[in-house]
């Protein structure tokens, strides 16, 4: 691919190079051998470099390209010796976020390499092959397979780690600790497939299956149905249900109905979710209670520079204690489901040279009483050479379960940007937080962006 980029007789392909450097400097309160009133401060001095290279139309006239992204990072505030005592923590490292070649022609799409996959079942990344074909009549199929990208595999990030387990038990195995699991760091093959129906009178649907193995045993095995209807403005709807084949129970349900008018929209959404946990973990067997959520949102956009929204949210946390056939059930108190409800309201203003937004969120119930206020604004000068943005956040928290976090938390962030050249921009961000918990807390962020296209 790189040869194609620099070869003098290269195809008239398009390429884009993005480089982004982010540095973050601040301190973290910690409680090593101390108490809440006397935290020790740990330095966080992180620097991260992203390097993204995309290419397209590598063969003349063909939808054939590649996308790659590499992340290199160092946490200069974390001594390497300390990092070795923490599972899944590195003081320096390199992650290949994605690197894949993609080809599309007609109804066929093929993608090879490290790629992300998002659907109702999960948000994951795998090293492998994905093939999708949709016939002109709208019927199709998709299949994919490869190795799940986990924090313990080569050049990879823990963002995609199957949850409920640590990346690897290598540290504890070396200590001969009890209840260790030598298979945690093993390669995890997975495969999945979907039968697709595309745009049959505005209806899109799929039935999917996914399975992964770890050292010879099933880790995930799930199936899902997804349906969507939409024909532009007006009524649209989507929904899906997931079934956990290992535990033989429904594990997730989502449905969204939306009406879009020319100046307003209403969205209603219902969710039943349970954590997606690795069956390699004992948590998987005890994650009994699901959570039900409903969202109702209205958007209003009159002519002019301002638009508004209002959202109501409710959540119910099911309380599912051991059944009557188990030892402890008979003596535990009967506890109803816990509720959390609230809403948000906000407005966004956009003028040619100035933009601002205000959002207020209030929630009460399980999780405490919370009031969040978020104000943002930004402007620019000299044809975007100078940019200035600000963000003011306020939170008033009252949670009986965590009295240490009661009070008002204020934070101000000011972001100044300067375009050095047509391809580069540098930004400096200051954040100052004030609260009774940490008193004054200053953070500094530095961002350098480069984008080149050719």
């Amino acid at each position, binding site marked *: 691919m790189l040869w194609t980029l620099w070869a003098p007789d290269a195809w008239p392909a398009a390429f884009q190079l993005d480089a982004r450097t982010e540095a973050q400097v601040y301190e973290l309160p910690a409680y090593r051998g101390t108490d809440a009133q006397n935290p020790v401060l740990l330095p966080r001095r992180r620097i991260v470099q992203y390097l993204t290279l995309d290419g397209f139309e590598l063969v003349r006239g063909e939808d054939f390209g590649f996308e790659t992204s590499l992340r290199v990072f160092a946490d200069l505030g974390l001594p390497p010796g300390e990092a070795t*005592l923490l599972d899944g923590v590195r003081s320096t490292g390199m992650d290949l976020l994605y690197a894949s070649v993609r080809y599309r022609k007609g109804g066929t799409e093929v993608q090879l390499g490290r790629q992300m996959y998002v659907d109702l079942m999960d948000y994951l990344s795998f090293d492998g092959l994905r093939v999708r074909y949709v016939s002109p009549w709208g019927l199709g199929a998709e299949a994919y397979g490869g190795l799940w990208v986990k924090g313990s595999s080569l050049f990879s990030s823990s*963002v995609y780690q199957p949850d409920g387990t640590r990346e690897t038990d290598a540290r504890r195995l070396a200590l001969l600790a009890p209840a260790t699991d030598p298979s945690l760091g093993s390669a995890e093959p997975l495969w999945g497939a979907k039968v697709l129906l595309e745009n049959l009178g505005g209806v899109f649907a799929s039935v999917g299956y996914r399975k992964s193995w770890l050292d010879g045993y099933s880790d995930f095995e799930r199936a899902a149905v997804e349906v969507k209807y939409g024909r532009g403005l007006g009524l649209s709807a989507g929904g899906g249900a997931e079934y956990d084949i290992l535990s033989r129970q429904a594990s997730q349900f989502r449905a969204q109905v939306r009406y879009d008018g020319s100046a307003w929209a209403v969205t209603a959404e219902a969710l039943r979710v349970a954590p997606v946990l690795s069956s*390699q973990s004992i948590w*998987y067997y005890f994650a009994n209670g699901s959570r039900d959520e409903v969202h109702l949102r209205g958007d209003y956009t009159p002519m002019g520079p301002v638009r508004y929204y209002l959202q109501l949210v409710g959540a119910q946390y099911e309380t599912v204690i051991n059944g009557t056939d*188990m030892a402890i059930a008979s003596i535990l108190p009967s506890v109803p*489901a816990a509720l959390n409800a609230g809403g948000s309201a906000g407005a966004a203003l956009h003028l040619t040279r100035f933009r601002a937004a205000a959002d207020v969120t209030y929630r009460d119930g399980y999780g405490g009483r919370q009031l969040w206020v978020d104000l943002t604004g930004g402007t620019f000068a000299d044809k975007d050479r100078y940019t200035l943005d600000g963000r003011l956040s306020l939170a008033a928290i009252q949670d009986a379960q965590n009295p240490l976090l009661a009070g008002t938390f*204020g934070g101000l962030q000011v972001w100044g*940007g300067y375009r050095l050249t047509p391809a580069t921009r540098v930004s400096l961000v200051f954040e100052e937080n004030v609260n009774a918990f940490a008193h004054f807390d200053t953070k500094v962020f530095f961002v350098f962006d480069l984008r080149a296209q050719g």
Partner: protein
Amino acid sequence: MRVRAWALGCLCACVALAAQAGERSLAIYPAQELPLRFDHGQHLADGADCLTCHDSARKSTQAADRLVPVGSAAEHPTCDPCHEIRNDAATCAQCHPGFDATVQKAPEALVLPRAELVFSHRAHFERHIACETCHEAMAQVGLATRMQLPKMKACLGCHDGTTAPAECRTCHLRAPTGRLQLQFTSGLLRPMAGNPLGLDHGPRFEFGHGTRAKLDRSTCMQCHGESECEKCHNGTQKPLSVHPNDFIALHPIEARTGSLKCDSCHRYQSFCAACHERAGIGLSAAAFFRSRNVRIHPNYETWVNDVHSPEHHSIRASRNIQECIGCHRQEDCLPCHSVNPANGIPQRLGYSPPGVDPHPASFLDGCLHMLRNNPRPCQLCHAAGSKELQCVKP
């Protein structure tokens, strides 16, 4: 090579950057400066038609072509046939307000940036598509502005996949990734209210797009590549546009309610627990970190020992186990819940019977199936070959 204000866009991602409903996208149709006095309605009423002044549109094949009448101080070939144009202040000011040819070399120039689209007037002209199909009601318009340029809804009247192609790339420019170009010098292309495909990205869309992204991945991927997902779903640095200020102090509030937002970037056992261990909060941390578990939970008696207490940890774990696994490793459960003699701890703590059973209702009905598929987690608490692993109801 061009740089875009993507850094700025990250900070203000919660702001609707596109123009509002009924108006035109600033990204597609950048702002114009039209220091002119003109009346389309009057010209049409007087018998002119579109091609009288915009004849070049018939041969135009690019959106960048300039299709307004051209002129100079000396001559106005498009206007001359009808207007008697003299080079004096009064005549010039009829169309160029404030311009006086005796003191200024030229009137203020028009700023007419190109539309950021793939478009051929010629192709539409050859298919006999009338000008007013896209440029509506010009008889009621004085000076034509961006508001007389067609919105996508008008395009989709013909571009329905049958009469004309309906793919996004038919009209929209593409980035070097092959996906649609979203960043322009004039702004960010972002579906606005009234988007004819029903894709409105309203305020704080970034915080609630999960269900749509999960159910409609192929539509999202028309515009957004993996790099755009990674900008926020990253899990390494504090994303300035996502977490509010002071989020490190406040994150327990969101985490306790098991916010779906946490899951989408962070894994509890490989991100949260490790950081908590380093901070001296995690119970299973190496001795070096000297963790003390005194900050988080209610008093030990009601939290652990008193199973009659409504504050017993089993209730919280049942509702939202993610709240637990952000700090705890599974070996923290074993001392009380395991019946595996190899762990030996229940007996040491004096529980009778050893191992407080945490399994949910009807667990035995399906446990054999799970055991066959993956016995490893079972064997953490139950010794291999023990009678419990026969999965038979007592």
